[in-house]
C-alpha cells in the first residue's frame, strides 16, 4: 500500500518518453539533472547542516572535463589512450571534481559553518570566469560538437534516448543517499547537526564526515554535468554560474532539505515555475529579463519564515499512511551477533590518574591542581557546589576542552593532549550535563552512534548496502544496551519525544554502546523519579561489578552516598576533600562548602 505511489510514479516515468511531446521529455530530463545536484545539497545542507552555493561550478567541471576530452584535437600524451571517450571523460570529471572539492573542503570545513558557503561563492565566480576566458575551453562561446554516448553498441542520442540513463542515474543516486543516511557513516553525518562536541566524543571524525558529505554532493553535481554535456552536445559557461548555484540550493530548500524526495520535488517545482514565469513575467512587465528571480527570492524568504523544512514534509502530511509512522507496525528489534569486546582491565587497577590538572580561561582558574585516581570496578563521585568546576574537569578529561597544565593518564597512557575522538577510542565514554541527543533520530539510532568506533565500513559500502552484516551487529548492540537500561519500549521513538530524565538514560546507553572501560556520567540522575533513580543505581552497581570504572558528577546526595565507593569534593576549582562517603560527610571543609560555615 505504502509503495503504491512510488510504483505509479515509476510506471508514469517509464511511459513518459513514449507518450509525451519532445519538449516535455526534455523538461523532465532537466528536472532529473537538477534534482541530482539538489540531492547532493539535501545531504550537505539538510542533513549535515553545511551548504554550498558553488554546486553549479561542480556541474561545470563534470561537463567541461568530458566535453574537452571528447572534442579536443590535441589530446595530451598521457590521455591519448582514451581516444576521447566520454566514459574516460566521466572519470576525468569525477577525479577533477573530487580533487577540487577536497581542497575547498580542507580549507573551509575546519572553520565555522559560514566559511564553506562563502568559499563556494568565490569559487563559483572564479570558475565561471575561468571557463569563459580559457581558449582551449572555447571561451564564452563554449564547446560544440560534443559526441553522444555509446553504451554496449547502442547510441544514446537526443532527449528521448537520454530519458532512461538520466532518470536511472537519479534514482540510483537517491537510493545511494537513502542507504547512506541509514548507516553508520550516515549517522555520523547526521550527528554533525547535534554539534561537534558530542559527535567527537562518540568517536566520530567530524571533519571527515563533513568532507564525505561535501564530496558526495560535489560528485553528484559532476555526474549531472557530464550527462548534461552529452545530452545537449554543446556547452557554454552560462549554466555553471553562481546564479544557477544559488538556484540549486533553492531547489533543495523548497523541496525540503531533509528528504531525498524533497530534491526531486524542489527541482521539479523550480524548473516548471521558472519555465512558466519566463513566459509570463516579461509579458506582464513589458520588458525582457530574468524577472523570475524576484519571485524565487520572495518565495524563498517566505518559505524559510513559514516552512523551513520545505514542501515535501507538508506534502507527506496529505498522503495517508506516509506521515510520521504512527499506526505503522513496530519494527522488529534488531538481532545480530555480539560485537567483539575490548579486554577489560583487572578489577581494582588504576584506570584514570589525574595529577595537578589545571584549566585556565585567561585569568580565571576553573580547575586548580586537581589530582585523583579512578580504579576499575569502582564508582567515584565528584561532588561540589554549582560552579565548582566539575563539568569543566569532565571536558578536560574527555578531551572536549583540553586542560592547561598537569597530566592525565588513562590506562597508563597520557591523554591530556589527545583529541576527544582518540580518547573515546581508548575506551572512555561520557554523557553530557545538557543532554546532547539528536531529537529527530530514533532512540535506537542515537544509541548506535555510540557504537560508531566498533564499526569500520565506509561511505561507499554504506551507499551500496555492502555493510549490512556489520550494521546489523551495531544495531543489535544498540538494542541490547537500550534493553539493559530499561528503555526497550521506546527504542523506535524519536529521542526528542522522551522525558528529560529518560533522555539522560539514553545518553548512558549510548555511552555503553561504545563498550567503555571508564564511564563519565554528568548528573545522570537529574530529572529522574525515585524508582528510576533506584533502577539507575542498580544498573551502575552492575556495571561496577563488570570491572567498569565510573566517574560521576551528581547533586543528589542520597544517590551519591548510597552508590559511590569514594568521593572527591570540589570547591572553586580545587579539591577540598577525598575519601569514603562517610568520611567526606563528616569533613569540616565539606560541611563549610555545602552549608556555609554552620559547622564552625
Amino acid at each position: 500500500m505504502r509503495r503504491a505511489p512510488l510504483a505509479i510514479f515509476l510506471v508514469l516515468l517509464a511511459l513518459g518518453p513514449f507518450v509525451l511531446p519532445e519538449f516535455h521529455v526534455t523538461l523532465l530530463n532537466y528536472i532529473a539533472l537538477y534534482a541530482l545536484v539538489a540531492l547532493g545539497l539535501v545531504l550537505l545542507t539538510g542533513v549535515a547542516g553545511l551548504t554550498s552555493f558553488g554546486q553549479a561550478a561542480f556541474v561545470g567541471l563534470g561537463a567541461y572535463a568530458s566535453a574537452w576530452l571528447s572534442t579536443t584535437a590535441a589530446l595530451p600524451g598521457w590521455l591519448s589512450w582514451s581516444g576521447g571517450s566520454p566514459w574516460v571523460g566521466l572519470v576525468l570529471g569525477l577525479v577533477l571534481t573530487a580533487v577540487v572539492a577536497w581542497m575547498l573542503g580542507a580549507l573551509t570545513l575546519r572553520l565555522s559553518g559560514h566559511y564553506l558557503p562563502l568559499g563556494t561563492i568565490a569559487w563559483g565566480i572564479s570558475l565561471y570566469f575561468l571557463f569563459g576566458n580559457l581558449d582551449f575551453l572555447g571561451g564564452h562561446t563554449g564547446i560544440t560538437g560534443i559526441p553522444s554516448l555509446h553504451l554496449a553498441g547502442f547510441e544514446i542520442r537526443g532527449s528521448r534516448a537520454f530519458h532512461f540513463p538520466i532518470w536511472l542515474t537519479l534514482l540510483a543516486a537517491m537510493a545511494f543517499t537513502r542507504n547512506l543516511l541509514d548507516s553508520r557513516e550516515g549517522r555520523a553525518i547526521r550527528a554533525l547537526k547535534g554539534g561537534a562536541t558530542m559527535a567527537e566524543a562518540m568517536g566520530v571524525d567530524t571533519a571527515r564526515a563533513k568532507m564525505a558529505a561535501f564530496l558526495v554532493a560535489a560528485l553528484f553535481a559532476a555526474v549531472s554535468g557530464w550527462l548534461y554535456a552529452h545530452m545537449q552536445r554543446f556547452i557554454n559557461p552560462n549554466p555553471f554560474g553562481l546564479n544557477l548555484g544559488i538556484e540549486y540550493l533553492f531547489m533543495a530548500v523548497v523541496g525540503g532539505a531533509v528528504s531525498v524526495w524533497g530534491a526531486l520535488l524542489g527541482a521539479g517545482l523550480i524548473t516548471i515555475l521558472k519555465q512558466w514565469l519566463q513566459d509570463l513575467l516579461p509579458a506582464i512587465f513589458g520588458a525582457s529579463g530574468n524577472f523570475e528571480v524576484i519571485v524565487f527570492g520572495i518565495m524563498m524568504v517566505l518559505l524559510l519564515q513559514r516552512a523551513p523544512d520545505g514542501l515535501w514534509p507538508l506534502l507527506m502530511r496529505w498522503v495517508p499512511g506516509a506521515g510520521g509512522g504512527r499506526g505503522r507496525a513496530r519494527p522488529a528489534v534488531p538481532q545480530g551477533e555480539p560485537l567483539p569486546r575490548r579486554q577489560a582491565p583487572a578489577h581494582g587497577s588504576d584506570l584514570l590518574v589525574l595529577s595537578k590538572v589545571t584549566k585556565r580561561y585567561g585569568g580565571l582558574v576553573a580547575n586548580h591542581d586537581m589530582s585523583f585516581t579512578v580504579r576499575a570496578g569502582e564508582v567515584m563521585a565528584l561532588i561540589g557546589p554549582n560552579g565548582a568546576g566539575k563539568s569543566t574537569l569532565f571536558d578536560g578529561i574527555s578531551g572536549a576542552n583540553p586542560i592547561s597544565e598537569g597530566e592525565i593518564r588513562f590506562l597508563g597512557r597520557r591523554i591530556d593532549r589527545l583529541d576527544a575522538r582518540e580518547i573515546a577510542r581508548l575506551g572512555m565514554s561520557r554523557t553530557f550535563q545538557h543532554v546532547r541527543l539528536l531529537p529527530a533520530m530514533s532512540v535506537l539510532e542515537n544509541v548506535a552512534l555510540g557504537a560508531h568506533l566498533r564499526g569500520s565500513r565506509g561511505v561507499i559500502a554504506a551507499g551500496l548496502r555492502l555493510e549490512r552484516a556489520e550494521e546489523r551487529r551495531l544495531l543489535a548492540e544498540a538494542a541490547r544496551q537500550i534493553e539493559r537500561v530499561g528503555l526497550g519500549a521506546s527504542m523506535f521513538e524519536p529521542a526528542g519525544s522522551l522525558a528529560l530524565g529518560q533522555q539522560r538514560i539514553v545518553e548512558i546507553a549510548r555511552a555503553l554502546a561504545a563498550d567503555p572501560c571508564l564511564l563519565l556520567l554528568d548528573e545522570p540522575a537529574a530529572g529522574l523519579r525515585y524508582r528510576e533513580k533506584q533502577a539507575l543505581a542498580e544498573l551502575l552497581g552492575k556495571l561496577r561489578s563488570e570491572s567498569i570504572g565510573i566517574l560521576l558528577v551528581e547533586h543528589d546526595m542520597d544517590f551519591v552516598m548510597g552508590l559511590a565507593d569514594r568521593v572527591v569534593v570540589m570547591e572553586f576549582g580545587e579539591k577540598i576533600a577525598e575519601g569514603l562517603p562517610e568520611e567526606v560527610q563528616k569533613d569540616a571543609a565539606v560541611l563549610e562548602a555545602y552549608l556555609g560555615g554552620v559547622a564552625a
Partner: protein
Amino acid sequence: MNLQITLLLAQDGITNGAIYALLALALVLVFAVTRVIFIPQGEYVALGALTLASLQAGRTPGTVWLLLGAGALVTVVELAIAARTGKRRRLASVLGWNLAYPAAAALAVATLDVRSLPLAAQVALALILVVPLGPMIYRLAFQPLAHASVLVLLIVAVAVHFALVGLALLFFGAEGSRTQPFSDARFDLGAIAVNGQTLWVVGASLALIVMLYLFFERTIYGKALRATAINRTGARLMGISTVMAGKLSFMLVALIGALSGILVAPLTTIYYDTGFLIGLKGFVAAIVGGLASYPLAAAGALLVGLLESFSSFWASAFKEVIVFTLIIPVLLWRSLATRRVDEDE
C-alpha cells in the same frame, strides 16, 4: 611597466580599495550585530548609483516605487500583527516611517526640479530614497528569523539578493548609467595626475570610517550596537532592543552601500547587477578580517583593490578569477590559525 603606470594602477587600486573597505566594514558590522552574512550589500551600491543617475537625468528613479512598495508591505505586516496581538502603541511610528515618509519622499521627487539642484542636494535625495530600504528589508525578511542559524540567515540573504537584483532590473532596465563627477579638478603630483573624483572617494571613505568610529565609541546607539554584537542576550537584559539594533545596523549598511555606489558612479558604469560583484569583493576583504576585525577588513580591502587593478593590467581577462581566488590563501591562513572545530551555534 614603468613608474607612471605603477602609480596609475596604485591610484586605481586605492580608489577601489577605499570603496571595498567601506563595504567590508558594513558587512562586519551587520554580521556582528545580526549574524546575517549580508550578500545583498551590493544591491544598495547599485541602487544608490542608479538612483542618483536617474535624478540627474531628470527621470523618476525606480527606487521611489521600491520604497513605496516596501513601506506598504511593512505596514501590512505590522497592521496584521497589531490586529492579532492588540498592541497598537507603536502604530503611529510604523505608519509615519512606512507610509508617510515614502509618500513625502515621492512627492519631493515629483515636485522639485531635481536637475537644477546642487549636487549635494541630489545626493541627499538619493540617500533619502535608498537608505530606509535597509530597515524595511530587515523588518520583512530577517526580523521574523532573528533566532535562526547563520546558515538559514545566509540563504535568506541570498534570496533577498535575488529579489533585489530582479527588482533593480525591473525598475532601472538593463542599461548602465554613469553620474557626473563630483569634481573635475585634476592635480599634478609629480609624474601622475590625480583626478578629483579619486580624492573625493578616498576622502569620503576616510571621513565615513572616522564617523563610524566616533559613532561606535561615543554615542549611546553605537555602544548599544557593540553590546549586541558582543552578547545578544546580555544586551537584551540591559534593555537594548535587538530589533532596534538590527534595524539600525541594516540602516547603516544601506547608507554605506548607497554612498559607495554614489562615490563610484562617476568612475565606472553601473548596471542593475554590478553591485553584486562589488559587494562580493567587499566580502573577500571582510573574510580577511575573519568577519570580525575592522582594521584587518580595511587592510584586506586595500589588498583586494590593488590586486584587482594590477591584475587588470597583467591579465585583464582573469581579473575576477585572481581576485576571488585570493580567498583561498586567506581561508588557508584562517584555517591554520583555528585549532579546534567550532561548535555550532
